[in-house]
């Protein structure tokens, strides 16, 4: 289930990249052939970078795709490795919990005062991206928790194998 959700947000994000390419295509063609670029394209592109990144984070964590130096880790025994993995997950969990919690007040404020970017016809509200960061960070924290659970119940290895072949 955890993997399924992470995979789903990842697919959404992957398709978002393609949609972004299409938006750019329409914007440029509109500009050259109809003197009418897509209103708000710049703002959409900018905010998409954040959304795309955060939607991909849970799966990147789930697949152990975060970059690390493994020199010490590789030289350890199985038990020590697991302790280190757990410590790593705890820090990851705290990090994303902290990110989610500290992103919450500004997101609520953005919603309350209808914070926007751009002006006139292209006022793009900022709260969707802000809440997306909150939600995906919470989920990333949960993925770390889940990984610890799998690790201590002996299911982590098999999980990695299945997702790698997926």
């Amino acid at each position: 289930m955890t993997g399924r959700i992470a995979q789903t947000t990842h697919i959404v994000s992957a398709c978002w990249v393609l949609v972004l390419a299409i938006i750019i295509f329409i914007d440029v063609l509109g500009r050259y052939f109809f003197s009418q670029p897509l209103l708000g394209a710049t703002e959409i592109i900018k905010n998409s970078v954040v959304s795309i990144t955060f939607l991909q984070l849970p799966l990147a964590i789930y697949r152990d795709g975060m970059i690390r130096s493994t020199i010490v880790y590789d030289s350890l025994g199985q038990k020590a490795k697991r302790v280190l993995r757990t410590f790593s997950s705890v820090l990851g969990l705290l990090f994303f919990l902290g990110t989610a919690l500290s992103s919450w007040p500004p997101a609520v404020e953005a919603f309350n005062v209808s914070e926007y970017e751009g002006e006139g016809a292209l006022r793009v509200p900022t709260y969707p991206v802000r809440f997306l960061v909150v939600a995906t960070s919470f989920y990333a924290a949960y993925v770390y928790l889940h990984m610890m659970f799998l690790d201590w119940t002996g299911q982590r290895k098999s999980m990695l194998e299945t997702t790698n072949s997926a």
Partner: protein
Amino acid sequence: DLYTLRIGSGHPAGPTVYAGVLRDYLVPELKRRVSAETEHELRIIEGYGGSIASVSETLEAVQVGILDIGGFCTCFEPAKMFLHNFQYFVPFGPEGAEEGIKAARRVYDAYPWLNEHLETNYGQSLIAINGWDNYHLGSSVPWEAVEDLQGVKIAGAGPNLPWLELAGVIPVQSILPDAYMAMQTGVYSGWLMFPSAYFAYKLHEPAPYYTLIGFGAMGGAIIITMNTRSLERLPLEVRDIVLEVGRSYENEAAKILDNRQISGLENLRNSGATIRELPNEVRAQWARSLSNFPNEMAKEADSRGMPGSEIVRAYIETITQSGYDWPVEYVIN
């Protein structure tokens, strides 16, 4: 005792006047006076150019307390500081920055709501205002008639983008530090920008066509605020010095801004930029197309629960009383 204060801005201190005067005047003056007049010392950590908070994060950084003192343009907080952008709602005002800042100061003094809004909602106190000098339009493509701008992407800070509606441009919201690359590579082809920064940010290199439209100087668009808790933590005599130096910064920075407006234009001319004046009747026509804009924005501020009509009206009246001749009559009803 030794007190540590952190001060910062999203704009770099060199090319942007308000940040430069923070670095060159406010900080040394604070340190000097506190050291000379009290038993205390100040240690000031400075972070300009967004190294601590970007232009759109400074209000929040002061609110949280990452910054004790922050300088920012209210134009990058179009929702939270909606009404603090009152000067943007009334284009084609006086071209002198000092004049504009003095007018804005009168409005700030007459309407304590402007300070209270900052204190109650965002935990910060106003210690000084500054602003921008006269807004013109620089572009990477030449244009003659206003119709030539149809469909061209032009950038602005935000609240000034509606000024361009008449011309049928595609408005893009952007920030100064991105402007060069964006115009160089064609993300957009023009910028609503004042002379003090146009030359300092080298925007004449990618966009040498500078048309003097004169949307007016934006007094009060820049505010310098201090986290209220940080301010209250300071001993009374230090607190007084902070507020006094804030006021003297306000006067000092206003003058420097106008000097930089003049030298900026000169430097643009000397560096080969193509500068031209917009004919007066075109400017008047432009202003007429925006005659209801102040009223619309005032009403939107009202609908956001802010004293929009009062403050916009007061600002217009203050300018009128100074003897300025508006190119169009603005009515707030």
